[in-house]
């Protein structure tokens, strides 16, 4: 089984995001960028499937600027077999990304896509589901546990209030949640080997995909700061003030 893992280069999760002065977006100049943490989990899962013999080949895809190659190499160092880099300097929307991924899935004849459930930069959480819909494949989102047997895959999903188990007939799309696995640290010998693995260079045009944005960003602002709290005397007063705020 061929597994495809899309990865995104995002602002490092340790870095405090700052809004650009013109409110057009988040300032990414001169800040540390890393692989989206959910994608690290996807990569780890794909590599484990390879190690277990369930996957025959694990391919990593990134759609983004030239620097996205670094993110691909990080995945190759963890154990992915080869990479595909779709070069674009546009900040593509989930729909465009899903369309490109669909074209790659078809070209590669992949049977499984493992994607992060969302990217920590814009938190859309849409790409995996859109891709499954366009491919007309079953999807198991927010995966907590996955198990492959024969032509199907059992996915325990993290839902409100517990875990939901679904059985998918392959081919399928799985999106990963935080508790699926604990990604390993890249080993030095594997970092060295990664540079010998191939990264195919592509552009959105290669897939004939229309990437015109459907959304317009009006403005980006910092979240409102937390205002000071009030200490209440007793439960009655608490309930009264909650009512007054319109919360209950």
């Amino acid at each position, binding site marked *: 089984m061929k597994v495809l893992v899309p990865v995104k280069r995002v602002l490092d999760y*340790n870095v405090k995001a700052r809004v650009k002065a013109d409110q057009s977006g988040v300032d990414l*100049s*001169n800040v540390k960028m890393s692989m989206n943490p959910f994608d690290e989990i996807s990569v780890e899962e794909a590599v484990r499937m390879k190690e277990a013999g369930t996957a025959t080949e694990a391919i990593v895809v990134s759609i983004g600027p030239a620097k996205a190659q*670094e993110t691909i*190499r*990080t995945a190759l*160092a963890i154990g992915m077999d080869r990479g595909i880099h779709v070069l674009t300097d546009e900040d593509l929307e989930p729909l465009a990304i899903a369309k490109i991924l669909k074209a790659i899935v078809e070209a590669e004849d992949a049977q499984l896509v493992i994607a992060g459930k969302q990217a920590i930069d814009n938190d859309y959480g849409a790409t995996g589901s859109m891709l499954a819909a366009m491919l007309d494949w079953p999807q198991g989102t927010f995966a907590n546990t996955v198990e492959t047997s024969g032509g199907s895959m059992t996915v325990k999903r993290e839902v409100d209030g517990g875990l939901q188990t679904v059985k998918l007939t392959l081919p399928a799309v799985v999106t990963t949640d935080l508790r699926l696995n604990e990604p390993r*640290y*890249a*080993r*030095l*010998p*594997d*970092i*060295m080997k*990664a*540079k010998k693995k191939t990264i195919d260079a592509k552009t959105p045009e290669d897939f004939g995909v229309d990437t015109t944005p459907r959304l317009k960003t009006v403005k980006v602002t910092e979240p409102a700061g937390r205002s000071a709290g009030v200490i209440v005397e007793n439960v009655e007063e608490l309930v009264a003030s909650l009512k007054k705020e319109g919360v209950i």
Partner: protein
Amino acid sequence: MPYTPPIKSMKYLLHHAVDFDAVLACPDHSDTTADLVGDILDGAGRFASDVLAPTNWAGDQTPAALSGDAVTTSPGFKDAYSAYVEAGWQGLGMAVDHGGMGLPQAVSVATGEMTYAANMAFGLCPMLTASAMKAIAAHASDDLKAKYLPKMVTGEWSGAMNLTEPQAGSDLGPVRTKAVDKGDGTYAISGQKIYITWGEHDCADNIVHLVLARLPDAPEGSKGISLFLCPKYFVGDDGALGERNSLKCIGLEHKLGIHGSPTCTMEFDGATGWLIGEPNRGLACMFTMMNEARLFVGVQGVAIGDRAYQAALGFARERVQGRTLGKQETIIGHPDVRRMLMDMKARLMGARVICMATAVAGDIAASHPHEETRKAAHIREALLTPIAKSYGSDVGISATSTAVQVHGGMGFVEETGAAQHYRDSRIASIYEGTNGIQAIDLLARKIRRDGGAGMMALIEELSQIPALLVMTTAETGVRLGSSRDALEQSLATLREATQIMLDIDEADGLGGASNYLMLCGHIIAGCLLIKGMCNGLLAGDPQAENMQKLVWYHALVVMPEAGAHLNYLRRAGRVLFDYPEIALGDL
């Protein structure tokens, strides 16, 4: 306290301030691209900050403990060590022939800095293993190499250096540990060694001790010392571990800092050892790795200084106290706090660039295709090593002290961790040859022995930087006047000081050696930073602008400190002994 590896600074210095690109151009490193080095630094940085840094505090609070002859390391160390082995970092600098990755030493210096900053006490173990491997690879028989190196290069077995005895420290001549030929190709080693870092522990499966000892017919002093390999467990021809050798840890030191590093008293009771290299040539064999270890101690200074700096910066960004004049509400808005941070940053960057320049010289000396270039680089490496060791460790100690100061009262209580860095850093100017010994090495072996030729070659090279400054201003329009003034003044100072050290009589020279070393450190650091600033500006590096501002501070404050040392050198020695010894007591 988290640790953020300064990877941007490292990459900046490697590519703009030192000739790392010349190392990558060497045939030995043709597979090593700048991208790959970037990936390696990222990987090492992540490992250091996520796996090693969280164990640092436990190492300080719960030191390694001895029970019977077994040493239990601090909580978390064993797991961190297993992860280190699993991730394959031990083989980074080791030659490919011996199962290593054969990466340049400059890369080891960068990854080493991250390891030591994350947990200096832990980092000593891999450092000593690397040094022991180098000594074995350079001097041991093929049998010994085949038996020990493969497991050491993975880190499954660690290495330890057994040099010091109570009466033999800075001067190893009086070493008394005995080695008796058993007639079967092995020797019986008996004696006691002290201060053996990571001499016994529970992290690795076996410990390979390199031991200095004296054969029965050996001449007195340092010319009668041989080097032996004594494993903790014997190794069968099939590589399997066998019986325990008769050597054990009989005590652990209670220390000022690096509590997580077990400092052992080792007893060799007729332990079986194998000779490494020629009889009576032990010190020469040991020096193969001493030079490298010295560089890495300088790196430790930078590392722990930077960790303390980061803690101070974090504290200054959070602590609110007093009304500030600037926009910031926390103490980072106070000019004097800002000064302390800037001062640490500038000095640490200077010490870091010296360590990198030393490593690059070592890489060129090892790998350049032209013999002349290799020779010149070897001289450069030898010249810079004592400076890297002393300047790096001194800058580190002063930075950890300033970091405590930034914390104010909170720095003096253990809770913030600033105190730990201060205590940990203190060893760096002492071990692997005290900084005083380094100054003597610089003066006697590196300056006077070749009549100053090595230093003059360096000065010659640094003298090309003013032209680079002019070119940078011409091409970028950036005005760099203060750098030019500092540079020209400094080069004149370095020339005059070197001439003084060549002309001076021995006793006066020794009285000024440490000052000369510091003078060299300030000036070489400043010159290389200026070079890096220019190359960065010319290359349009986005970090160049900040580097330029840092260099401005360095040129105004740090480089001119060399002038005070020069003043002293002009009268070196005399002033020391003119003052009566008796009056060193009460006036």
